[in-house]
């Protein structure tokens, strides 16, 4: 299926990627060709085939709910681009 430029812009918004005009153009063409290849799957009748999400069947892996030592806060904050008073700091979250 050929993707339109509008669709590419919509997907980029969903993915939180600010693409350049040149990237939008390249991806419109490249993604269309990749999807075209992927659609070869449609030749297979899978109406009675259950999906597999994980190859080694493990379900509901539980552990005891016990407190344990977590990572050091200062060490974690040291990796944040910006922080203040023990919190990660970000630009304003409301627009306008």
């Amino acid at each position, binding site marked *: 299926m050929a*993707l339109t430029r509008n*669709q*590419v812009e*919509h*997907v*980029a918004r*969903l*993915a*939180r*990627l*600010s*693409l*350049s005009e040149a*990237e939008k153009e390249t*991806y419109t063409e*490249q*993604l269309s*060709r*990749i*999807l075209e*290849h*992927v*659609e*070869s*799957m*449609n*030749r*297979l009748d*899978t109406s009675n*085939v*259950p*999906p*597999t*999400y*994980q*190859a*080694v069947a*493990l379900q509901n*892996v539980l*552990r005891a709910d016990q407190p344990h030592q977590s*990572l*050091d806060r200062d*060490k*974690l904050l040291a*990796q*944040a*681009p*910006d922080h203040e008073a023990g919190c*990660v700091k*970000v*630009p*304003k*979250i*409301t*627009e306008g």
Partner: protein
Amino acid sequence: MAAASTYKLSATRLNRLFLAGELSAVEITESVLQRIKTVEPKVTAFLTITAERALERAKKLDSRRRAGDTELGALAGVPVAIKDNLCTDGVPTTCASQILKGYVPPYDATVVERLHGSGALIVGKTNMDEFAMGSSGENSSFGVTRNPWDPNRVPGGSSSGSAAAVAAEEVPISLGSDTGGSVRQPAALCGVVGLKPTYGYVSRYGLVAFASSLDQIGPFARDVEDCARLFSVIAGPDRRDSTNAGRTPPAIKFGGEPSLKGVKLGVPREYFAAGIDSEVKARLDEAIRQLQALGASVAECSLPHTEHALAAYYIIAPAEASANLARFDGVKYGHRTSGASGLLEMYGKSRAEGFGPEVKRRIMIGTYALSSGYYDAYYKKAQQVRTLVMRDFEAAFAQFDALVTPTSPIPAWGLGEKTEDPLTMYLADVCTIPINLAGVPALSVPCGFAGGLPVGMQLIGKHFDDHKLLQYAWAYEKVTNHAAARPALEGGL
């Protein structure tokens, strides 16, 4: 009694010599660091070299040995390199991406803890395709790793540096990660041994996630015994990875007369289809005859859904990646744009500036496949095809102990040759991808040369039959001389 060529020794031998007091850990480390210094300008396998940390650990190990400590470990005194998507406490971990440039993890991956616990000496972090997305190593944003057999060719990927470092004798062993062939394919193209363990055998805790249902950490080595030694150290239960199978692999013993008597091997015809290089096919045919000479029975078989596995993979892996890579948003770690006035703009720009073209491409495909209105047509369909691919393997393993295929249909290609069209690069993974979808183990072992470039044979096994694959590969290796072949780096590149 350190010699100038100490770095050439296998991990198994280095460990023995160290434990016997014939070589100190410091001598071994210095020899390896010197070798890295000499050939690294020609290969560029490393992103970070941790010489001081390695020497410090080596000194401690030497004191412990002198003090009579007898619990030094299966890799005591052995230098090892690890892929730069494995978290190392206090040492940068970049996934070869601008978005993680300068990132220093606050903890060690489970495999790193296990390496330290076994006495291994981590000498550096290796180059890779950005976030493990690629088949040539060329998607690294920090430079290109070259194939030690021919500097104008790719080493394969995505674990490009880990494969090249072992082939160039910079380290005896290394770790990579394999989501669709990223250990086996570069192992084949660089002429070394590489294992993709059964899904769930090795903890993924501390491996920066690409596609969580496919990712598995695996070892590289120059011979099968070293590969098995490293696998035994990293595999096993870990409660910090809820997809870990909680199993410890059986002790793997090598020795005696190499024999494959009673072993039933299948040769799936789809893996020898159009597109396979004629010399690669010839090497495989010879290898299969050698497996027969060792006593194995060999018969042709079919994995009918092979051609659809690639399509399913290129939906499933990007879909999982688009979710996993959502965490790189400029908030808690990694790159943040300098020019954003609001939060949404900060997300979009930080990600656009930090991710390279292939990573963006896969995030886009994955996001599209999971988006409202397309989920059933792409993502669900791909997961149904995955079931069919798994059934193919189940049916084959009802008849055979293991399957034999080429690892890559072609030997190493020229740098820049496949970068224009992403689809041609994707098609190079056709022999390795179905294995990850099924979660079964597979290894690549050298089986000769095509036009002077290494060729790899892939052995595929049942879930948790990793030890059997290693034993079959060991028998094959014993009756050939491929493990002794080394690239002539000294001749100058």
